Each structure stands twice: as structure tokens, then as C-alpha cells.
């Protein structure tokens, strides 16, 4: 064979101390590799599969990929790839790599991982291969990283969530590659990806901050090579690590506080405005900003707080009215462990929610709230011990009230609960605080379903088990309860004909959910049912040109059929319709909230959800009216209103139907309709 291995084997240093299971699997892998090595070229096939079988198991234990990396060249030499496309690495396509890493067949996942491990060895100079030089290998890996950036750092969407452990393994592999190869070339792609995510103003920014920290390292190491991408990257890094003149050199919190103690008024004002500008620019709050705010509370000569929060007219008005509670909130919630609370607070003030009579006392109650028992442990488990659980929860409350549409479901199948929290935060913030208080103090949430009392502690755990810990603090607290209640309401609907969401949604969310409900699919058969009528009713309910110009006043829950980039059906998903309006070019768009962590998704067939540039507010996704409708399968409507005299053009309905049938409804056309579907 034509492969050589350099003496210093790559990966050993990064592998750390692998646990016993990994060690044992490594031993078994070596046995399998030895058998493969011994075999003659014509007999390799039989011994390849056992190697891949063990490699697949090794990959799913911690440190597995690192261990595979140390054996990559040996496996290649032994003939692991003989007889397959992987035997010619120079001809492999980087765009296929990500998909193969999460293939159904563990053998293919192991094969791809082993191949990437080989590229990594060649790229880092640890191994040599006749048909692959170090630069080529590095270029290939860079492309793989850039194409799989979301899985390297990013958030998780439905299609990915269905993959479970496979995705975890893929992410570990990509991260390992990113650590070894570095991210310089990938940076340009990353920077624009981060900006795209930031525009959605997610409550959870851990991942983005992590990405920016990576970029900071890359800038530090290879800044000179970056060229044009450097500007965007630096803007991100400075927002987080040095947004003002006084913190530009990232001096450390103590040194910074020392510094501003001797800064004059003009300088302090400039600091405050610098922080505010960076925060509103990115949605990210620097640790210096948090420290400055707490310091500014005790600075009596001049109110620096509103300046540092970057408040506009509504926010300033709130500040003047409710200064005491705002100062209390800053003191309690904005800490080095919870800097993002500052942005939540600023946006909360800007929304004017404090003018809603119950809000100030409700927040005062929240300030005094002490978490009990298991609830306390869960918050600590999710967010660490750097600050008390009460601080995390209060910070979470401020963020959710300030950025209602920034709520995300994490990697959990709990879109309904996340959607409910977001909608309450948007229009019913005092009710949300009431639920939070109940859950925190009594570890239960009470609701009623058509007069029947429901108490979440009495119910079995739902879809999310004991609830997520990878979401925001309010979700960590509430979702486990909401999830159970939602499921119980489903049980109470057992035996009723049709889709239970018709009754659950208004009972679960509030009076403002319209009592009528249209469903595109017959629950019993799964086939489309009276679909043209469904489409027509959607036009009459939501399209301003057909509903007499009535705007959407309260968010309305709706169900979509999620499709992937190939327009293949993935699953049902809960969203909320926020408003329907023309964008700047006069096209009618639906603006909606998706509890998914990243709304910007490609649903195939040119239905690409936009999150910016088409009139979206922070956290909104939008689609043109017809595109959106083509993916809707359930919506609420007012049962009292009858709009028989309004005609929706048949061709508009036919077009939407065509797009639905070309994607999620492909298998759902009723047999009777197939012949006459053109009508």
C-alpha cells in the first residue's frame, strides 16, 4: 500500500483519558483491524464489516472519534476502504459527507467517520496518502465544516431532532475536526451564519457566544489572513469582549471597574452609549456591560442606567415611572452569570409592559420568590451554580418578557409548550408570571379544561419526560407541567370526532384563540379532506383582501406540515400566526412565530422561510401568503363569521393545492380525488 504514517500519531494528545468502555472497544477494534490487515486483498471484504461494526460502537462513546483518529491511517492501510468509493479520497464529495454521518446504517456512519479521520490525519501531517496531500485534505475538511456548520455549533431543528444520538455523534466528530483543522477558512461562512441567527434575537445565545469565542480565537491566531471577513467578525467579537473605548482591550472585569472609577462624566456617558449600541446591534450583552450596569446603579451623579440600556421614548417613560423596581431587577438579575438579562430588561421596558397594572406587583413577587425542592435542583442542573437558581429564573423571566419570540424549544419535542410560553409572554405577561409563580412555589400548574380541573402534578410525565434542561430557565421550569397538561387535555378529548386541537388550543392558551378550527386532513384516514374549502377559509380568515381588512389582533396557534429541503414530509409542528401584511415590495406575507430555535429553514420547493429583510420583526419568520398556506394543515377561525359572498380566485387555491400535493400531502390525496384533482 501507498500510505505512510508519521511517528507522532495525531489525536493522542487530544483524546484525553478515554473511559473503560472506549478502551475496551479500542481493544476489540484492534483485533478486527488485525484480521483485516492480515487478509489478502481478495479477502478484505469479509473483514471490513466487523471493523466498521466495532468502529460504529466506538463512535457513540465519549472520546470515540479521537480514538478512531489514532487508527485512521492503519485502517486505511489495512484495506478498510478497498472496493468502495471511499478508496479514492481525492474523488469524494464534501457535500455528501454530512448526510452519510447520520445515515440509517451504522456501517455507513462508521465508514464516513473513518474516512474523515483519515483526512484529518493527512491534513495534520500525521499520515500520508499517495492520492491525497495535506492541503487537499484540509480543503476537503474545511468544506465539510462549512457545509455542516449548524451541526458543528448551531441549534437543532425538527428534521435533525429525529436523528437523536446519531446527531450527537456527528457533532462530536465535526467539533473534533474543527479543533484540529481550525476555523480560518470557515470563518466567512460562520460570520454570516451568526448574523443570521442574531437577527432572530433568540433568548438562548450560548451557542452563538460559543461560536464568537471560536472566532475570537481564530482572529487572534490568524487575523492577518482573514481579509474581508475580518470586519464582520471583529464586530461580533468586540460586542462580546470589548464593546467600548474603556473595554476595547478586554482588560478583565476588575481592571475595568478600576478604570471607570476614574473616568469623567463624558467618558462614562460614552461607555454607556457604547454598550447600548453594541447590545442593540447584536442582541448580545458583554460581561463588561453587566458589570457597568451594576456599578451605575450606585452612581448618583447622573442616571447612566437608561443610557446603558439604550432606552428609547417608551423605555425612558417606563424608567421614569418605575425606577425603583427596575433598579431592583438589575440588582437581582443582571450578574456576571446572567448578562443577557440586561437586554431582556431593555426590551421589556421598550415594550411598555410595566404599564400593564398587574405587572409591577407581579415582578415584585418574582423578586421575592424562592424556588423549592426539585424545581431548584433542575434550574441548578440546567444553568450551573455560578448564580443562585432564583437569579437564573429572574433573568430568564426578563428575557422572555423582553424577547417573547426568542423562546426556543431546545432539542425537545415540546413545540406546543414553547409556543404557549412565547404567546403568553407576548400578550399575557402577567398570566405567564402567575404560572411561573405557581410552578416555582408549589411545583404544579393548575388549569381547567371545559370546567374540569387539571393539576399537573397529578399527571404522568409527557413527551418531554421531566422536561428539558437545554432551554431557557422559564421553559425549564414550566415545560414539564405544560407538556403534561397538554397531553391530559388530549386525553379528555378522547372519543370526540376530528382533531382535538380544536378544543385544546383555546382552553390551553386563552380566550383569544378563535373557537373554530379547520383541519386539512381527515384524522382517521390521514388523507386530505375538503382541502379546497380549507384553503378558501384560510384566505377568508387571514388575507386582508378577503377578510375585510381585519388584522390579526392576538397570535393564533396553527399547525404546519414541516418539510425538508427536498420537500419531503418530516412531521407536524406547532407555530403561531402573528400578523399578515404586505412587505416593502407589496407582496402579502404571513409573519409567524416558530418555537424552533432557528426559523430560517428551507422547506423545499422554493419555500424558504425568511427571518430578515422582508419586514420581519425580531424573532419572526415570514413567507409569502400562498407559500405559507401550502404548508398549513390546521388553523383557528371565528365560527360566528360567515363570509359566503366573498370569492377567492379558483386559480389561487389550485396553485396552493398543487404545492401541498408536491410536498407533504403527496401520499395524502384521497383516492376519489386523484382522477379529478385538476378541477
Amino acid at each position: 500500500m501507498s500510505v505512510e504514517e508519521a511517528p507522532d500519531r495525531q489525536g493522542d494528545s487530544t483524546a484525553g483519558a478515554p473511559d473503560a468502555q472506549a478502551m475496551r472497544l479500542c481493544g476489540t477494534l484492534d483485533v478486527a483491524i488485525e484480521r483485516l490487515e492480515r487478509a489478502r486483498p481478495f479477502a478484505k471484504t469479509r473483514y471490513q464489516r466487523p471493523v466498521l461494526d466495532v468502529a460504529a460502537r466506538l463512535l457513540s462513546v465519549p472520546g470515540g472519534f479521537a480514538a478512531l483518529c489514532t487508527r485512521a491511517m492503519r485502517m486505511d492501510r489495512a484495506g478498510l476502504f478497498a472496493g468502495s468509493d471511499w478508496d479514492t479520497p481525492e474523488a469524494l464529495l464534501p457535500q455528501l459527507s454530512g448526510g452519510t454521518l447520520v445515515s440509517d446504517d451504522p456501517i455507513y456512519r462508521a465508514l464516513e467517520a473513518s474516512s474523515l479521520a483519515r483526512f484529518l490525519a493527512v491534513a495534520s501531517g500525521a499520515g500520508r496518502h499517495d492520492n491525497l496531500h495535506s492541503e487537499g485534505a484540509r480543503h476537503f475538511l474545511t468544506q465539510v465544516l462549512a457545509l455542516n456548520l449548524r451541526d458543528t455549533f448551531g441549534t437543532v431543528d425538527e428534521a435533525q431532532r429525529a436523528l437523536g444520538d446519531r446527531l450527537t455523534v456527528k457533532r462530536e466528530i465535526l467539533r473534533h475536526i474543527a479543533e484540529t483543522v481550525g476555523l480560518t477558512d470557515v470563518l466567512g461562512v460562520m460570520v454570516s451564519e451568526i448574523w443570521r441567527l442574531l437577527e432572530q434575537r433568540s433568548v438562548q445565545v450560548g451557542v452563538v457566544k460559543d461560536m464568537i469565542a471560536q472566532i475570537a480565537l481564530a482572529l487572534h491566531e490568524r487575523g492577518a489572513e482573514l481579509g474581508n471577513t475580518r470586519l464582520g467578525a471583529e464586530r461580533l467579537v468586540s460586542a462580546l469582549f470589548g464593546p467600548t473605548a474603556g473595554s476595547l482591550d478586554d482588560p478583565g472585569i476588575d481592571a475595568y471597574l478600576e478604570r471607570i472609577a476614574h473616568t469623567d462624566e463624558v467618558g462614562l456617558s460614552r461607555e454607556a452609549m457604547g454598550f447600548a449600541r453594541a447590545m442593540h446591534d447584536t442582541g448580545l450583552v458583554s460581561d463588561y456591560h453587566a458589570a457597568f450596569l451594576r456599578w451605575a446603579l450606585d452612581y448618583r451623579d447622573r442616571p447612566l442606567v437608561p443610557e446603558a440600556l439604550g432606552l428609547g421614548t417608551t423605555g425612558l417613560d417606563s424608567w421614569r415611572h418605575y425606577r425603583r423596581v427596575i433598579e431592583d431587577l438589575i440588582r437581582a438579575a443582571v450578574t456576571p452569570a446572567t448578562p443577557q438579562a440586561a437586554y431582556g430588561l431593555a426590551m421589556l421596558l421598550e415594550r411598555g409592559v410595566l404599564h400593564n397594572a398587574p405587572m409591577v406587583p407581579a415582578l415584585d413577587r418574582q423578586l421575592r420568590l424562592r424556588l423549592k425542592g426539585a424545581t431548584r435542583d433542575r434550574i441548578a442542573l440546567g444553568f450551573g451554580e455560578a448564580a443562585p437558581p432564583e437569579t437564573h429564573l429572574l433573568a430568564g423571566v426578563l428575557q422572555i418578557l423582553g424577547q417573547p419570540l426568542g423562546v426556543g424549544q431546545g432539542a425537545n419535542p415540546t413545540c406546543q409548550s414553547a409556543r404557549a410560553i412565547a404567546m403568553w409572554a407576548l400578550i399575557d405577561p402577567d398570566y405567564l408570571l402567575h404560572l411561573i409563580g405557581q410552578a416555582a412555589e408549589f411545583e404544579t400548574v393548575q388549569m381547567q379544561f371545559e370546567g374540569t380541573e387539571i393539576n399537573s402534578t397529578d399527571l404522568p410525565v409527557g413527551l418531554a419526560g421531566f422536561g428539558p434542561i437545554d432551554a431557557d430557565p422559564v421553559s425549564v421550569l414550566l415545560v414539564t407541567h405544560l407538556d403534561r397538561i397538554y397531553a391530559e387535555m388530549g386525553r379528555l378529548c378522547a372519543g370526540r370526532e376530528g382533531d382535538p386541537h380544536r378544543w385544546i388550543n383555546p382552553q390551553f392558551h386563552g380566550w383569544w384563540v378563535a373557537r373554530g378550527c379547520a383541519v386539512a386532513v381527515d384524522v382517521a384516514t390521514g388523507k386530505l379532506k375538503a382541502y379546497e374549502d380549507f384553503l378558501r377559509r384560510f384566505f377568508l380568515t387571514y388575507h386582508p383582501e378577503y377578510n375585510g381588512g381585519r388584522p390579526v389582533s392576538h397570535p393564533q396557534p396553527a399547525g404546519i406540515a414541516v418539510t425538508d429541503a427536498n420537500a419531503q414530509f418530516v412531521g407536524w409542528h406547532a407555530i403561531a400566526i402573528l400578523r399578515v401584511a404586505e412587505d416593502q415590495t407589496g407582496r402579502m406575507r404571513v409573519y409567524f412565530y416558530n418555537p424552533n430555535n432557528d426559523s430560517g429553514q428551507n422547506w423545499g420547493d422554493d419555500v424558504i422561510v425568511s427571518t430578515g429583510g422582508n419586514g420581519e420583526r425580531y424573532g419572526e419568520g415570514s413567507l409569502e401568503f400562498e407559500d405559507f398556506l401550502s404548508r398549513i394543515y390546521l388553523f383557528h377561525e371565528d365560527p360566528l363569521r360567515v363570509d359566503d359572498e366573498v370569492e377567492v380566485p379558483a386559480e389561487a387555491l389550485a396553485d396552493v393545492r398543487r404545492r401541498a400535493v408536491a410536498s407533504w400531502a403527496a401520499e395524502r390525496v384521497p383516492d376519489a380525488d386523484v382522477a379529478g384533482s385538476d378541477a
Partner: protein
Amino acid sequence: MTEKNPDKGHVALFGWSLNAIDAVDRFDRRYLVVAPPWAEEYCAQNDIPFMAWDFDRLNERSYELAQRLEERGVDVAIPIFEETVEWAGAVNAVLLKNPRLLGQSMLFRDKSLMKRRAQLGGIRVGVFEEAHDRGDVIRFLKRVNETLLKLDGDPNDPIHFKAFDKSGTAGHRVIRTPEDVDNIPDEEFPALLESHLDGWEFAVEAWIKDRKIQFLNISEYVTLGYSVFVPATPELEAHRERITKEIEKLIEAFDIEFGFIHPEYFLTSDNTLYFGEVAYRPPGFNALELIERAYGFNGYQGLVVAFDPKTTKEELDAFFPEAVTDAKGHAGCFGVYPRRRVVSRLEVPEETANHPYFEFHELSDPREQKVAKRSAFGTHWGLAYFFGDDPHKLRDLLKHQEELDFYV
């Protein structure tokens, strides 16, 4: 190809086995694969020395085959499959100028003759009879159970039905009722009928040279047709001395000068050893690989050493390890059969996948097969391999696999 030693013998492998070819290609002997014509192109592509021969035909042309092999300089033929044992005997009779080898191979090929020969050699065998039709089977079943003083309505003790010339578990049926007899297809007659022996069943692999056992392995069956491991538990190995004596009796009874035998035995509860049958070829269930995993030597290369007339004493001593004490651990395998009627995919049970003794598997995808109703022992869908220090733990683990679903 490994550098070949011209002073050593030139062997012919009778039958197509990629594992055997792979092992011998790595060994220092010159070799020739004798297999059906369909393998010719593959061998040409992979530089495998090859001679086309159709073993399905009757043996009448064996002299022609022997002559052609002699012209190619072949010293000895090694049978890889049951179907080629008689051919190898006939050819070796010519090549080694020893006519008795043909007669010997006929004994190995006919289970009834084999049993009688063993009996004549003073070896203990169970009750057996030949069956030419279903009537013979019913009669034997009835007679055996009458002997056991069973009354009408008592469940029958089973009998075993083995097609005369099939290897291993192929064509092996356990008969309990007349309905079982009806299910036997015509083509499986004539066959050997044996009474059932309750006891510990095991197999022996013995490499023989100069009428002496060079290496004797005891393979312990956990469940016949499912699982086996080597070396055996200390409880079974305690009988090694007696077993060795039994093998020596076989060498005498069958007049075995050299080669490899694979007999099966029963050790009954009254501590009596019963001979079951013997084959003059490598065993199924990849037992040679288990031996390689445990001892580190390649069984096929061992075959070459044992068959090659030019092998020296020193070479033999160096090649084979010390039984039991030289083993690095115990290696076993489990033959997987789907347990459900309808299966859609292969999924190794989690407890198996996470067990420290589990190594890897060679199970085929269900899309390649349909679940057929099992009549005879049938063919498993692949093997799962295990390796560990504790033979009892390994035995129980292999037994436990029978309760798990690998196909769901």
C-alpha cells in the same frame, strides 16, 4: 502472495473457500485451488492459482484429476467441504500411491458405514439404523420408545435423522412424532437414524500427522446449531485424557495417517462417551476462526502442515501451541436466527452490543433474506463473535443470546 518455500509440499485445496484461500495464500506452501469453473475469472483477477473442476459430477474422472494435479506438481489434496472429501481421498490415493486412502474417504462420506466402522473399532456408539423410506423411520421411532418402556400416550423420546452425506446440521432433523416424519422430503433419503442421547455434546478438532495427534481442540457446544466456544470449560477439559484416547481409537479404526478430523461426541450423565460422527474436513460455524482467536494459529495453515508429506517434525512442534494453557482467552460464536415471523431490520440487542465479551458480528441484512419456516436446523443469518476470560460467563452469555431478538 507470501514467498513460497520450494522445499515444502505443493497442496491443492478442493472446494471454494475464500477464508481457506486467504489463509493459505499467506502461508509458505505453494497451492492450487481446485473449484468449479465459475471461480476461474475471479482467480485470474486476483492471481490465485486455479484449476477448474466440477465436483458435482461422478467420481469416475478422479484419476484424470489426479493426473492433471500430478502434472502441476501437486503433492496432496486437502478437502475443504464434505462434498470433496471422497474426491480428495481418490486423488490422494494416486498422488501418495496409497490405495487405502480412497476406501478411507468412503467411510467418512457414509454416516452408516462410518458408525459401523467405529463400532468395529471398539468405539461406543448409540443405537442406529439406516432408513430408506418413512416407514423405516416410524418403525425406529416406535422401537426405540418401546425399549424405553413408554406407554401409549407418553411423549416420545426423540430420534435423530441425518441425511447420509450432508455435513453438520444440514439435513439433521429431530423426530418426535409421525407428523415430523411426514415432513421429511424424499430427497433426504437414505439416512441414518440414531437414538437420542441426553448429555453433553461437544466436538473435537484434531490435526494428525504420522498417526499422531498434533493438536487437539475441544469445542464445547452451548446449544447445537446455535453456539460453540473454545477452549471448553474446565469441567469438559477434565475429560481431555479420555477424549484423546478416543481419538487415538478413531485413528486406528479409520487408519488415519495424516490430515484433520472433526468428530462429535456425547458425554452422558453416567459419564460414558458416545461417538456421534466424524468428518475429514474443517468444521462449520467458523470453528477454525475461534481457534485462531483463542490460540493465534491459523487452522487452515494447520491443515496444510498436517496434509503436506514434506512437513518436518520440528515444523509441527513449532506450529502448534500447547492446548488450553496457550489460549489467550475463550472465543465463541452465536448463530443468529430471526425469532419473529416478520422482520424489517437488523438491530443488535443493546445488552449484547454493550457486553464486554461481544466483539463483532457478520449478520446479513434482512432485506437480503426472507424468514423461512425452519424445518431442519437450517441456516443461520450470520454469526456474532464473543471473546473473554471466563468460560462459564461466556457459556451463559451465548445461551442467553437465544432469548434475544437480533432482527426486529
